[in-house]
C-alpha cells in the first residue's frame, strides 16, 4: 500500500452529491496538483459521513478534522493552511456538535457513541480492499477458516447475544444453528439489503462505506451454516452500493478471500448481487426469496421458515446488513467483549438515521439501552427553536411511536415492546409539538395502504379501512365509535395478518391512540386540533 501523508475524505452520499461535493472534489484535486501535493495527499470519495444537513462534508486524516458546508472557494485555503502548513482552519471546522463522525482521535464530545458497525465508515477508502485489510479486515474470516469449526463460530455468535437488526430481533446464532443442522447439500446465505423503510439508509451507508465487512461476514456465516453460495439482495435504487459490493467481490476473489478454496481451507463460497424488486414488502425475508425466484414479491406462510425451506426450497439464512457488520468484530474480539456494549439482554450497538425536528441529524451508532432522552438532548443537540419534544417514531414496519413518557425507557429490542412500542430497524424520526398526531397517523397509514402486497385479507382491506377512518377523524368527521373500531381493527390486523407488514401496520396508530388519545378526542368532540397545525 502506497503511503500517503494525509487523506481527504469527501462524502459522496446522495445528499452531499446534491450539494455539489463533486465540484469540491475536483477543486481539491486541482489545488493539490498546484501545490505539488498529489503524491502526498490522497483524495477519497467515501460513503455518507452522517451529518447530511451540513454537506458537502469533508474529513482530513490523520487528524480527523471535519469541515462542513465546504464551498469551492474554501478549498485553496484548506489545502494551503491545513495540508501544507498543518494548521487547522478554525473558522471552517464543525462546532463539534455533529454526530455520526468519529475522528480518528478519541473525541470527547461523542463519548456516548460506540463504533462497531460503522468503525470503518468514513475512515477507509471503501474501494480499497487494502485499506480494509489494514484495519484487521478478513482476519476474522481467516480465524474462522483456519482455527475454528463451524459449530464454534455459531457458538461465539450465540454467546455474543447478537440479535437481528432487520427488525424482528431474532437471535442470530440460533438462526444460524437451524440452518447448520439441516442436511441438505445446497444451502444459501442471503444478505438483506432491501432497506425499504422510509427515512432509513443505514444499510446503504455500510455497504457504501465498508463493503468488505459484509462480504467477510457473509463468508463467515456461509462457513458456519454450510452454505456455499450467497446473495446480497440490494435495493435497486442503491446504485453505488451495488457497484461497491460488486467491486469488493472482485477484489476479494482476486486475493483468494472469496471463491474456491478460501485460504486453502477447502471451503468455497460464491457471492453475487441481486437487485431488489422495489416493493417495500420485498424486504420481508420470504417475499425477498419469492422475488429472487422470479415470482410476485409476496410473503410466504411461515413455518416453514427460510432456515429450513428458503431460496429454491433449500435452507437459507437471511440476515440484515447491520447484523452482519457486527460479526467480524465479534469473532475477533470475542463474545465477552461484545457483551460489554449495550444491555445484558440486548448487547451491542444500534445504528439510527436520526431525522425530523432535531438539531443534529444524521447517522448515529449508539449502545443498546441508551435512552431517547440521551439521544435527543446529548447527541442530537435538542429540539430546534426551543420547542417541546412530542413524539419519536422508530421505523416504518417493525417500529412504533414513543411519547414523552418514554424518554427514559431503555431503547432496546426487548424493553420497548413491553411498552407497546418497538425499536424498529433504523429510522428515528423526532417530532416536536408543532405536529398534529392525527395528521401523522394519517400519513403513516397512507404508506401502509400503498405498500400492502394484497396477499392476505386483513392487511389488504384493513390498511385501507384504517386509513379511511383516520382520515375521517382528521377531517373532524370522526366519532367515538370510530376510535373503538380503530382499536378493534388494529388488534385484528396484529393478530391475523400473514406477515410483519400487516401485523405492524396498525402499531403506529395504536400507540398514538394510547399516548395521545386526547388529541384524537379533541378532533372528534371539539372539531379542533390542539397543535393548531392541521387543516381543521
Amino acid at each position, binding site marked *: 500500500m502506497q503511503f500517503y501523508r494525509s487523506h481527504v475524505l469527501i462524502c459522496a452520499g446522495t445528499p452531499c452529491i446534491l450539494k455539489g461535493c463533486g465540484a469540491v472534489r475536483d477543486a481539491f484535486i486541482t489545488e493539490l496538483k498546484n501545490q505539488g501535493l498529489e503524491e502526498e495527499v490522497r483524495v477519497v470519495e467515501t460513503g455518507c459521513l452522517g451529518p447530511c444537513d451540513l454537506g458537502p462534508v469533508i474529513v482530513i486524516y490523520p487528524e480527523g478534522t471535519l469541515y462542513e458546508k465546504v464551498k469551492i472557494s474554501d478549498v485553496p485555503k484548506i489545502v494551503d493552511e491545513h495540508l501544507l502548513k498543518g494548521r487547522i482552519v478554525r473558522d471552517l471546522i464543525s462546532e463539534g456538535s455533529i454526530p455520526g463522525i468519529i475522528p480518528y482521535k478519541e473525541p470527547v464530545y461523542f463519548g456516548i457513541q460506540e463504533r462497531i458497525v460503522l468503525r470503518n465508515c468514513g475512515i477507509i477508502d471503501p474501494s480499497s480492499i487494502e485499506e480494509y485489510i489494514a484495519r484487521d479486515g478478513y482476519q476474522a474470516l481467516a480465524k474462522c477458516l483456519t482455527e475454528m469449526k463451524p459449530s464454534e463460530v455459531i457458538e461465539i455468535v450465540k454467546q455474543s447475544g447478537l440479535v437481528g437488526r432487520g427488525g424482528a430481533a431474532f437471535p442470530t446464532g440460533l438462526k444460524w444453528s437451524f440452518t447448520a443442522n439441516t442436511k441438505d447439500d445446497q444451502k444459501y446465505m442471503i444478505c438483506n439489503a432491501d432497506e425499504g423503510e422510509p427515512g432509513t439508509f443505514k444499510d446503504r451507508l455500510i455497504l457504501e462505506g465498508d463493503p468488505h465487512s459484509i462480504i467477510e461476514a457473509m463468508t463467515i456465516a456461509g462457513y458456519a451454516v454450510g452454505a456455499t453460495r450467497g446473495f446480497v439482495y440490494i435495493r435497486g435504487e442503491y446504485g453505488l452500493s451495488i457497484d461497491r459490493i460488486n467491486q469488493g467481490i472482485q477484489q476479494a476473489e482476486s486475493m483468494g478471500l472469496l471463491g474456491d478454496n478460501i485460504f486453502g481451507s477447502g471451503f468455497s463460497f460464491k457471492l453475487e448481487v441481486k437487485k431488489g424488486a422495489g416493493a417495500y414488502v420485498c424486504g420481508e425475508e420470504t417475499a425477498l426469496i419469492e422475488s429472487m425466484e422470479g415470482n410476485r414479491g409476496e410473503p410466504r*406462510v411461515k*413455518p416453514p421458515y427460510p432456515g429450513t425451506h428458503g431460496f429454491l426450497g433449500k435452507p437459507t439464512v437471511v440476515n440484515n446488513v447491520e447484523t452482519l457488520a457486527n460479526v467480524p468484530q465479534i469473532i475477533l474480539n470475542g463474545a465477552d467483549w461484545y457483551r460489554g456494549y449495550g444491555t445484558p439482554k440486548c448487547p451491542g450497538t444500534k445504528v439510527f438515521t436520526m431525522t425530523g425536528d432535531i438539531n443534529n441529524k444524521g447517522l448515529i451508532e449508539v449502545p443498546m439501552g441508551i435512552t431517547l432522552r440521551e439521544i435527543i438532548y446529548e447527541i442530537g443537540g435538542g429540539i430546534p427553536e426551543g420547542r417541546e419534544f412530542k413524539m419519536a417514531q422508530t421505523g416504518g414496519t417493525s417500529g412504533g411511536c414513543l411519547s414523552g413518557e418514554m424518554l427514559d425507557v431503555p431503547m432496546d429490542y426487548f424493553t420497548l415492546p413491553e411498552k407497546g412500542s418497538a425499536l424498529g430497524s433504523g429510522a428515528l424520526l423526532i417530532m416536536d409539538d408543532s405536529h398534529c398526531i392525527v395528521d401523522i397517523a394519517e400519513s403513516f397509514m397512507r404508506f401502509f395502504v400503498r405498500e*400492502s402486497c*394484497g396477499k392476505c385479507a*386483513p392487511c389488504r382491506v384493513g390498511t385501507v*379501512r384504517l386509513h*379511511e377512518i383516520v382520515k375521517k377523524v382528521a377531517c373532524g368527521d370522526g366519532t367515538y365509535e370510530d376510535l373503538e373500531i380503530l382499536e378493534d381493527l388494529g388488534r385484528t390486523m396484529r*393478530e391475523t*395478518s400473514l406477515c410483519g407488514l400487516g401485523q405492524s401496520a396498525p402499531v403506529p396508530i395504536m400507540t398514538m391512540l394510547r399516548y395521545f388519545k386526547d388529541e384524537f378526542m379533541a378532533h372528534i368532540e371539539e372539531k379542533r386540533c390542539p397543535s393548531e397545525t392541521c387543516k381543521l
Partner: protein
Amino acid sequence: MALVTLTIDGKETQVEEGTSILEAAKTVGIEIPSLCYLKDINETGKCRVCVVEVEKSNTLMASCVTPVANGMVVGTNTERVRSARRTVLELILSNHRTDCLTCEKNGDCKLQDYAYEYGLEELRFPSDRVLPELDDTNPFFIRDLSKCILCGRCISVCSDIQGQDAIALIGRGFDTKVAPAWDKPLEESPCVFCGNCVQVCPVGALTPKYSVGKGRFWEIEKVETTCPYCGTGCLLDLHVKNGKVVGASGADGPVNEGWTCVKGRFGLDFIHHPDRLTVPLIREGDGFKEASWDEALELVASKLGGLVSEHGSDSVAFFSSAKCTNEVSYLMQKLARAAVGTNNVDHCARLCHSSTVAGLATSFGSGAMTNSIHEIADAKAVFIIGSNTTENHPVIGIQVKEAVRRGAKLIVADPRDIELAQKAHIHMKHLPGTDVALLNGMMNVIIEKDLHDKEFIETRTENFEAFKECVSKYTPEYVSEITGVPAELIVEAAVAYATADTASLIYSMGITQHSTGTDNVLSTANIAMLTGNLGKESVGVNPLRGQNNVQGACDMGALPVFFPGYQSVTNPDIRSKFEKAWGRELPSEPGLTVTEAINVAYEGDLKGLYIIGENPMVSDPDINHVEAALKNLDFLVVQDIFLTETAELADVVLPSACFAEQSGTFTSTERRVQLVRKAIEPPGEARSDWEIICDISTRLGYPMNYSSSGEILDEIASLTPIYGGITSRRLDSKGLQWPCPTEDHPGTPYLHKGKFSRGLGLFSAIDYIPAAELPDEEYPLILTTGRILYHFHTGSMTRRTEGLHAHRPEAFIEIRPDTAEDLGIVDGEMVQVSSRRGKVEVRAKVTSWPAPGVVFMPFHFAEAAANILTNPALDPKAKIPEFKVCAVRIDRLPLEAAL
C-alpha cells in the same frame, strides 16, 4: 411418520407430523371455518378466516397452514378467535358486492354462511370498494370480480392442476385482482375454459353462464353420472331442476377427482336443444312424417324381418354406438346374433381403435389400456405418440402435466406443435404415417446401446430374435430420412424412454387411424416389452379411447367376431354357452365391419341397416361414397337424439333418450365400468335405447323383457368372465376396472402382472410401409385430421351447445407459413381443399404447428367435412381407414368467396 399429540378445544388427538391444525381438528369433529384453503391445492393462508388461538403464541395462527406440534394447546372458538374472525370477515365483506338476493351462488356461498354464523348484519366499514366491471366476454362463465375475495383458489387450480397458468394476481394491495396477464380478456390468454376455477370459487365471482337465472341452489338436485364426451370417464354432477338439466359440475370420480374439461362442464345444453327428436319419424317422399311408436316399430320389425326372410340373416347389419351404454351395445349384438342370426354387428370403434384391439390382442392377449390413468402422474417418463391429449382427453392431460411437475421426462412424437409437444422435453415432429419407422428407430437405438430389459425379454416374451433382426436396419440416420426427425433426437428420446424407471406410453388415434394402424400398435407393444415397461404400476401401453363408451361397446361384443368379453364367435364351446343362455342357434361366421358393411351396401348386397347413435355421414372416410351406399339400402333405421346427417337418409327415425335420460353403465378407457344415472325424463315421446331394442326384438319374434338396465348388467356379468363380478348390486361411484371375474374381486388397475393374457408377450417384426396415398405433383400436401378441444366427434352435441359453438363456430385448416406464402394465402381467408375424392371450402389458419408439407383439419364440421377428403384405404387386419394421411391440394378462391 411420527405421531404428534395435541389438544384442540380441550380434546386430545393424535395426528401425523406435518398435519395442519385445521385437518387435525377434523379428527375430533371440529370444523374450522375457511375460505381460501383447498387441501393440497391452495394452502396459501390468504383469507385468515381460519385463525385459531395457540397457547404461548402472541398472534393468532392460520390453522390451515400451521402444522401441529407436540403438546400444542389450540382453541378454535374462543372469544378472542371469534372476535378476530368476525372482523376479518367484516373486512372481506366490506369489499364485496353483497347482492345476495340475486347472486347465483346464494345458498352455496361460504362467505354468506360465515356472515350468517357470525351475525354480520351491518358492516362498520360502509366505505370504498373496488368494483371492477363485470366480465362476460367469454361464452362459458362470467367473472364478477366485484365479488372476488382474492382467495387465490382459482389461480392455484389453473396453474397447479390444469397447468394452464392463464390467470394470476395483478396489481398490488387494495387494487390486487385476479386476471390474465396484462389484464387481457381470457380468450386471449392460455385459458382452455375447463371451468375448474369456477368449480372451486367459494363465492359468486365465477359463475357458469348457461346456469344464470335457471334455479337457486336449494331448488337444485345433483345427480351423479358419467360424462358423455370422451373416454376418460369423468364423473359429473348434473344439476337438475324441474326435470331440466340446468348446470353441471365435476364430481369426485376416481379419475377426475372433481375436475372436468370445457365440454363436460359447459357443453351439456344440447340436452334441451329444440332440435331434439321427440317423436318417431317415417319417411314420406323427400321428408318425414311423424308417427306413433307402434307404427314405427311395426314398420321396422316387418321391414327387417322381411329382408331377413327374403335375403337371409346376413343381408342386414347393426351399428351400435360408442356413445350408448354397455347395456345398449349388449342388447344390440344380442339382437343381431340371437334375434336375427347374423354377426353383422359393429360400431364406430372400427374407425378409431379397431387396430388397438387387433394389435394389442396379438401382442398381449387383450386389447385395452394396460394401466390406470392416475398411475401416469407417478411415471418417470411419459412417451406420447399420436395423441393430442390435452385437447382430446383433457383430464388425462392433467395427469400428464402432473407427472411432469413431479419430475417425469415428457417425450412427444407428433407432427404438430400441440400443447404437450410445446411442454415436452423432447418433441419429435415426425411426418404423418411414419410411426413404425420412428418406433423401430428408437428400438434400434435401445438395442444398440444395450438398454433393453434382457430379463423381461427372456422370461416374459417370445419371438425377440426375429424382431431384433427386423429393427437392425432402422438406424437413426435411416429413420431420420423417413420421418424428418433429426437422428440425435431419436437417440435422445430412445435413451430417455429406456432408462426411466417407469415409462408410460400413451397413444391415440394418431397411431391407430392408418392403413398400417395395427402395425403401429404392434410397434408400441414392442417398445414397451423391449424395455420391460409392462405388468407394474405407472408403465404400459395406454391407448386413449375416443368416445365415452368405446371401450364398453367393444367389451360388449358390438364387434363382428366377438361375443361380449372378447369371446370368439368362431369358438364352438363359447358359441354353445351363448346358445344355451340365449336359447337360439348362433351364427359362427364373422360378420361385416362398419367399413365393409358400407362397401357391401354400396355394391347392393347389404339390404337393411339399423344404426344407433352413429353418424357415418360425417365420421367415415370418403363421405360421398358413404352417402351412395346408404341411399342404396332397401331399409335404413336410425335411432338418435338428433336428426343427424345420417338420420336424414333413414326410412325410419327413432327418437332416443340421451345419457341424462337413461340408466346404465359406461366403461372408460381405463377399463373402468361406471354408472350412468337417469337424471331427467326424455323429451316428448323419446325412449331409452334399450327399451326400443327390446321392443324391436320382441316384434321380430325374439322376446326381450328386462325390468331395468341393472338386470341387463347382471346378465352381462353372468356371460362375460371379465365382467363377472361387475353387478348392479355392487357398482357404486368408484366403478370397477375389469378384469373383475367375481363379486369379491377388487378389479384390476393394471394388466399383465407376472403373466400376459396370452401367456408370453409376442414381439412382432414389423417393417415400415408408407401410407397408402403419398403427396405427388397434383396433390402435394399431406392432410392429417383430428379433433379440437371444444368439439366432439361429428359435432352433433357440441355444435348444439351455445358456448362451445360460439367459441369455435367453424372449421379451419392449419397451414404452415411457408406453405401459405408459396400459395399466396393469408391467415383467415377461405380456401378450397381437394383430394382425389372430393373438395371442401374452409378457412385458412396460418400457423407453424404442422410439420413441413403437412396440413391439418378437424373433422367435426359437416359443412366443411374433412372426411370428404380422407382416404378410405383400410388397414388389412383391423379394417380401420386411413384418416390420418391423405394427399390434398389447396387452391385460393376468387376474391369474393375468400372473405
